[in-house]
C-alpha cells in the first residue's frame, strides 16, 4: 500500500491583498475540487491511500459530495486514491498543519501534496524533513508553489511515491533560517525582509516602504512579491545552491537603480535598490539591530525590539517534486501506457 499525505489549508487566500491589490480568491469549492483532482491523479498512478488533514465544514462537505458523485459515475476512469482524514483536533492555526505533517510521516507517507500559498508551504517545510513535497498554489499570489492543474500534480506525485519518478524527479530547494535573539529559529522558503516598521499589522506585506534588507533563496523576475525585486536586479535559478542579499534604498536618492516590481497581483510599484550580492549556502547575514519587523515569505511575522540580534542563514530546504520532469520521464519510459488489449 502506498500512502500520500495531503495538506489543504482552508484559511489560505483571505489576507489584506484582496483589499489593497487584486489578489485572487480561492473558495472552499475550488480547494475541494483541487483535492478531488489530486486524488484522481494519485489513484491513476497506483496510490491506494491518501491521508489528509481534516478539512473544516464547507471544504469537507464539498469534497465528500464530489467523491460520492464520482463513485456513482461511469466507471471507465481510474478510481481516486481512498481518502482518509487524520484523527486529529484542529485549532485553526498553523500548528494544525505541523501536527498533520508529523502524523503523515509517522504513517509512512511517501510524499505530501500541499495546497496553499507560500505561508502554508513554509509551515509544512518546517515539519516534512525529507518527505518529497508537491507544492500547489491555491492562488495567483505565490512564489514557492506552482499554479498548475492538480490532476497532473497528483499523477506526478503518485509516480514519485511508487518509486517511478525518475532521476530528475526531486529538487532540493533552499531555505532561509532566521534567528532572533534566543527565540526558536524560524524558516522561510522564498524571502526574508527586514522592515523598520515596528508592528506587523495585517501580516501580508504589500508596501515596500521601510524595508532595509531582502534575502532570497532564488530570484525569479517572473514572480510576484518581494523576491521579484531580487529577480529584477539579478535573476537566480531555483535550487542552484546560491541566494541573494539585496539592500533597498532608504530614500529615492540613495537608489543605485529603481525597478518596477509587482509586489502583489495587480500592484506594480517602484522599488529603489541600493546594492546586492550573492549569498552562498551556509553563509550567515547579520541584520541591522535597529529593531522593526521581519517578514518571512511575504508575511510579517516577527517584531524585533531595538538592539535585538537577528541573523539569517541560507540552508538546505525541502525536497520538491518537479512535476514536468516526472511527466517527461513517465512519457519517455512509457509509464503511463496501459497494457495492450488482448
Amino acid at each position, binding site marked *: 500500500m502506498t500512502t500520500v499525505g495531503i495538506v489543504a489549508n*482552508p*484559511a489560505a487566500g*483571505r*489576507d*489584506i491583498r*484582496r*483589499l*489593497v491589490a487584486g489578489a485572487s*480568491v480561492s*473558495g*472552499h469549492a475550488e480547494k475541494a475540487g483541487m483535492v478531488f483532482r489530486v486524488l484522481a491523479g494519485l489513484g491513476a498512478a497506483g496510490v491506494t491511500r491518501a491521508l489528509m488533514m481534516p478539512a*473544516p*465544514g*464547507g*471544504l469537507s*462537505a464539498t469534497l465528500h459530495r464530489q467523491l460520492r458523485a464520482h463513485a456513482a459515475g461511469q466507471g471507465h476512469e481510474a478510481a481516486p486514491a481512498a481518502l482518509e482524514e487524520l484523527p486529529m483536533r484542529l485549532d*485553526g492555526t498553523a500548528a494544525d498543519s505541523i501536527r498533520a505533517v508529523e502524523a503523515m510521516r509517522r504513517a509512512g507517507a511517501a510524499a505530501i501534496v500541499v495546497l496553499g500559498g507560500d505561508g502554508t508551504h513554509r509551515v509544512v517545510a518546517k515539519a516534512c524533513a525529507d518527505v518529497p513535497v508537491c507544492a500547489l498554489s491555491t492562488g495567483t499570489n505565490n512564489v514557492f508553489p506552482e499554479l498548475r492543474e492538480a490532476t497532473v500534480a497528483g499523477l506526478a506525485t503518485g509516480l514519485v511515491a511508487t518509486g517511478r519518478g525518475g532521476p530528475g524527479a526531486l529538487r532540493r530547494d533552499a531555505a532561509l533560517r532566521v534567528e532572533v535573539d534566543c527565540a526558536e529559529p524560524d524558516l522561510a522558503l522564498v524571502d526574508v525582509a527586514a*522592515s*523598520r*516598521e*515596528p*508592528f*506587523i*499589522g*495585517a*501580516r501580508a506585506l504589500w*508596501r*515596500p*516602504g*521601510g524595508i532595509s534588507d531582502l534575502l532570497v533563496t532564488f530570484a525569479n523576475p517572473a514572480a510576484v512579491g518581494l523576491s521579484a525585486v531580487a529577480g529584477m536586479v539579478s535573476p537566480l535559478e531555483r535550487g542552484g545552491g546560491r541566494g541573494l542579499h539585496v539592500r533597498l534604498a532608504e530614500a529615492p536618492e540613495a537608489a543605485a537603480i529603481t525597478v518596477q516590481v509587482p509586489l502583489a497581483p495587480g500592484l506594480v510599484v517602484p522599488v529603489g535598490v541600493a546594492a546586492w550580492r550573492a549569498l552562498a549556502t551556509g553563509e550567515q547575514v547579520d541584520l541591522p539591530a*535597529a*529593531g522593526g519587523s521581519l517578514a518571512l515569505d511575504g508575511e510579517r511575522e516577527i*517584531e524585533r*525590539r*531595538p538592539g535585538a540580534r537577528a541573523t539569517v542563514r541560507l540552508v538546505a530546504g525541502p525536497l520538491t517534486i518537479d512535476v514536468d520532469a516526472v511527466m517527461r520521464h513517465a512519457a519517455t519510459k512509457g509509464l503511463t501506457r496501459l497494457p495492450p488489449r488482448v
Partner: protein
Amino acid sequence: MPATAPPGTGQLTREQLLEGYRVMRTIREFEERLHVEFATGEIPGFVHLYAGEEAIAAGVCAHLGADDYVASTHRGHGHAIAKGCDVKAMMAEIYGKQTGLCHGKGGSMHIADLDKGMLGANGIVGGGPPLACGVGLTARVKNTDQVAVSFTGDGGSNQGTFLESLNLASAWHLPCVFVVENNGYAESTPPAYHQSGVDVAKRADGFGFPGVVVDGFDFFAVHEAAGEAIARARAGGGPSLLECKTLRYYGHFEGDQQTYRGAGEVEEVRRTRDCLATFVQRVTNAGILDAEDLERVDQDVRGLIDEAVTEAKAGPDPTPAEVETDVYVTY
C-alpha cells in the same frame, strides 16, 4: 526607535497609539464595571458585554470622523465608545436615567447618538447592515465622502438582512464596510453548526467585492485592514467585508450560564491573546510608549468610569409626563 514612523509605511504615530489604547481601555473598564454592577440588580433590561473584542471597535473607528456612520449590534457599548459617544451619558442610559444619551428610553440595546454618527445599538440580530446601506446610499446620492460601517456577529451574518445588504451595497456601489465580529458563538452555537465554511469573509466573493480575515485580538491588524477598507469606500471603491476572529469574555448576555464553552477557553485567551495585554507588550517592546504613558491612561479611564457609575446612579429617572417624548418622530 524613532517616535514617528518611517514615511510610506502606514505605521501609527505615538498619538494614534495612545488614542487606540485609551479607547480599548475605556471599553474594557466600562464593560468589566457593568459586569459587576449588573449583578446587583440595579440595571434594568439586558446587557451584552463587548469585553475581549475591543481591538475591533477601536481599530475600525480610528479611521472614522463624526460624520461617518456606524450601525451597531445588541453588543454595542464598544462601538458607541469608539465612535465618540459620551461615556457618562452612555452609563446613565444603561441605568435608564433621564440624563442618559437617549434620556433613558433606549437602554443598553438602543444606545444611539446621531450627532456622533452612531446609528444605534440594535436589538434586532442583523439589523445594522441595512441601516449602513441606507446611510451609504445617502452619502452616495449627496456625493459626500462619508463612509458607513456596520458591525454584525457570526450569528447575524446568517440573517437574510446581512446577505441582502451585501447585495444592495454591491449593486448600488455603496461606501459601506461590513465588519463581522466572529466571536465564536451565535448566542450559544459555534459556527461549525450553522455556517458552511470557516470564513464569513468568503461570502463577499459571491457579491463581487473583497472580503478579508484578520485577527480580531490584534489592534494593529484590524487598524491596518480597516484603514484600507474605509479608504477604499471613501474613494468610491465600493463595499468590502472585514471578518475579525475574536472571542467574547462574558456570556451572550449577563446571566448566561455559558455551558456551551470549552473548559478554560476564556482564561486561555485572556492569558495569551488579550488585545490590551498584547498591545502593551508590543508598544513597550518597540520602545514607542512606556509603562508610565499607559498607566496615565489607565488612571484617567478608571476615574471616568467611577464618575460615570456614581453619576448614573444618582441621576433622575424619566418622569411619567415624558413617556411619549423622544419616542415618536414627526417628519
